[in-house]
């Protein structure tokens, strides 16, 4: 035990003092901030400029209707949809032009090119009846404007036809009122406050954290074993300690580094997490309960131990960094598979696919945690996955320490798979 502690402490101190640790600690949250919060901040900034749009239609009534629907701010919906309200701060100046002669079309097109207006809706009577209206602008991919326009046109056409059938205006407004579905999670027989979309992003965020740190530190363990092997330091170490102690110390040290990093991130981002983050037009509160935090810690540590053991085995079976790189897919594969299936698992956390994946030990840390986050699975499944995970870690440790013990004593020659299998059997 004493030796394990000494090795773990050495590994821990060496990694934490490295520049890469400090860089990673700062860089990863910065990157995540950059990928998530920044774009929506920029997007909401842009919309303060007003856009000039012309509606060219022979039907004055229709033109005014579209303009009114388009300019009318959407009704305040649920408070969580503050982001949508943000989007409507984009201001528009809309004019209705009843001249739909080909000459006017040329004039309007010229105006668009000369930046006098941002775009125009070309809706002569023929186009209206065929429902083939076109919007011409410099930025033909401004989907937000297009979407708003299309909604406004549809509403305008609907009101027009309602009016034709003699439906009173108030009734028309009532019919056209949008419907909102507010997604709430039911937990322990109670309706909770956390919204589905917030859960999705919370899961995504934590997955990225898990994915990146596990990948990074399992590689770091691999390199550290490789270094010991190449510097032959293990010869000295093995003359005082067993390979199991060495291996356990190394992996525990790496796990301690990971915990430190997560702890730093948690402390730094805790005040931020309490605030809502505006993302994709949604206002999100990172819904992390104490229970979920504990599960995160458990799966993080176990995932870390499993993949670190894998990294150590890889490091001891190869001779150089280049060779190691060829085998990195062994570590990355289950992580990538987990990432690919993340969306289906979030959408249907109860499906057979999700259940099976979450019970495969190499996928458990990411998938089972996601399931817990989205919809608490049956306790027996959580228990089984944890038991399988712990069992696999133990098996990996003992297999790896064998590969380690023999692999590090063999130089120069790259072991073949049958040889590695033989080493595992060898005591």
């Amino acid at each position: 035990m004493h030796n394990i502690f000494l090795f773990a402490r050495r590994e821990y101190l060496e990694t934490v003092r490295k520049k890469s640790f400090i860089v990673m600690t700062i860089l990863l949250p910065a990157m995540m901030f950059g990928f998530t919060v920044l774009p929506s901040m920029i997007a909401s900034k842009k919309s303060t400029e007003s856009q000039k749009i012309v509606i060219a239609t022979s039907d004055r009534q229709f033109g005014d209707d579209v303009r009114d629907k388009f300019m009318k701010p959407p009704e305040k919906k649920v408070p969580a949809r503050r982001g949508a309200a943000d989007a409507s701060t984009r201001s528009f100046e809309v004019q209705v032009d009843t001249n739909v002669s080909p000459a006017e079309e040329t004039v309007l097109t010229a105006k668009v090119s000369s930046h006098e207006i941002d775009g125009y809706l070309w809706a002569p009577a023929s186009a209206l009846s065929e429902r083939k209206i076109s919007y011409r602008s410099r930025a033909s991919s401004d989907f937000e404007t297009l979407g708003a326009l299309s909604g406004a046109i549809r509403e305008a056409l609907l009101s027009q036809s309602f009016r034709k059938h003699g439906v009173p205006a108030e009734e028309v407004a009532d019919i056209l009122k949008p419907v909102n579905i507010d997604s709430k999670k039911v937990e322990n027989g109670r309706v909770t406050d956390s919204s589905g979309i917030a859960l999705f992003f919370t899961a995504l965020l934590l997955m990225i954290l898990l994915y990146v740190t596990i990948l990074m530190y399992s590689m770091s363990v691999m390199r550290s074993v490789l270094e010991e092997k190449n510097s032959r330091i293990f010869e000295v170490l093995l003359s005082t300690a067993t390979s199991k102690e060495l291996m356990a110390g190394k992996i525990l040290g790496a796990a301690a580094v990971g915990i430190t990093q997560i702890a730093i991130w948690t402390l730094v981002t805790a005040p931020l997490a309490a605030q809502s983050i505006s993302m994709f037009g949604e206002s999100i509160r990172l819904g992390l309960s104490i229970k979920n935090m504990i599960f995160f810690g458990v799966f993080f540590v176990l995932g870390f131990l499993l993949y670190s053991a894998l990294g150590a085995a890889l490091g001891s079976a190869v001779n150089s960094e280049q060779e190691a790189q060829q085998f990195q897919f062994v570590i990355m594969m289950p992580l990538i598979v987990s990432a690919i299936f993340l969306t289906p698992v979030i959408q249907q956390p109860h499906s057979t696919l999700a259940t099976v994946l979450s019970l495969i030990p190499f996928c458990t840390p990411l998938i089972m945690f996601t399931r817990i986050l989205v919809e608490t699975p049956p306790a027996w499944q959580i228990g089984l996955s944890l038991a399988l995970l712990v069992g696999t870690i133990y098996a990996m440790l003992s297999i790896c320490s064998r590969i380690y013990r023999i692999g590090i004593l063999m130089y120069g020659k790259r072991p073949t798979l049958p040889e590695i299998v033989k080493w595992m059997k060898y005591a």
Partner: protein
Amino acid sequence: MHTVELQQVRKSYDKFVAVKDLSLKIEQGSIFGLLGPNGAGKTSTIRMMIGITVPDSGQVRMFGEPFKRDHLKRIGYLPETSGLYKRMKVSEQLVLFGQLRGLSATDAAARAKKWCERMDIAGWMDKKTEELSKGMQQKMQFIATLLHEPEFLIMDEPFSGLDPVNATLLKDVLLELNKEGRTILFSTHRMDQVERLCSAICLINRGEAVLQGTLKEIKGRYGRSNVQIEYEGTDEFLRENGLIQSFNNYGNYVEVRLAPGADSQKLLHMVAERSRVNKFELVEPSLEDIFIDVVGKTDA
């Protein structure tokens, strides 16, 4: 009592047999030389002595009993190539090695300081290991081996990378430790280096012991059958007749091994006839000569 006793120890890696039924005994308090060319099986033998590998067959006995891991606390092992963490500070690393061998942190630190002063690297204790020169790292490794005051020291190529001054320093320390009663095992292919230090040797080649015994006994067995000749003029005489079995030309002088039964006086006359002789001396063969002789015979 014997510090180490190997009984018919065998170790093979796949089909390659690294050590073939090797038996040897190292007397307590002696300086023992495990000699042989590269790849002879020296390091494989040592690894079995310290439990890094387990022999396929045969037995390893340490301090008079079958090997157990507890023995490692009484053994110090200096590996052939530097086995140090490059990014660790010198002092921290020495303390770690001391702790791994059961010393307390404070004890280890005090001993490390004392030894660094003795080995002349005290000024480097706060530096990272990778900043040290190869020779300094070798001295550092040496200190790491000694911290726990082992009864048995295993030195695998201890002088490699050391200049003559430092090699002498190391040798003096080792002799001093031997005087205190500690057993020392030298493993090297540089036979000339240990010839003057060892009291007993075991020459191994291809995993087998080809020559064993005390140095005195071995040299006695070969007698004064070598002649060192310093001469001026032609070296034609070297290619003559049945007097010379083999020779080694060192440039300034030549060492000749006489054929069995040959008379050294006859050789002197012959050399003097054609060249000017400055020195003609009957000497004991060096270990290297003996080794070449023995290995030549077994290989033939």
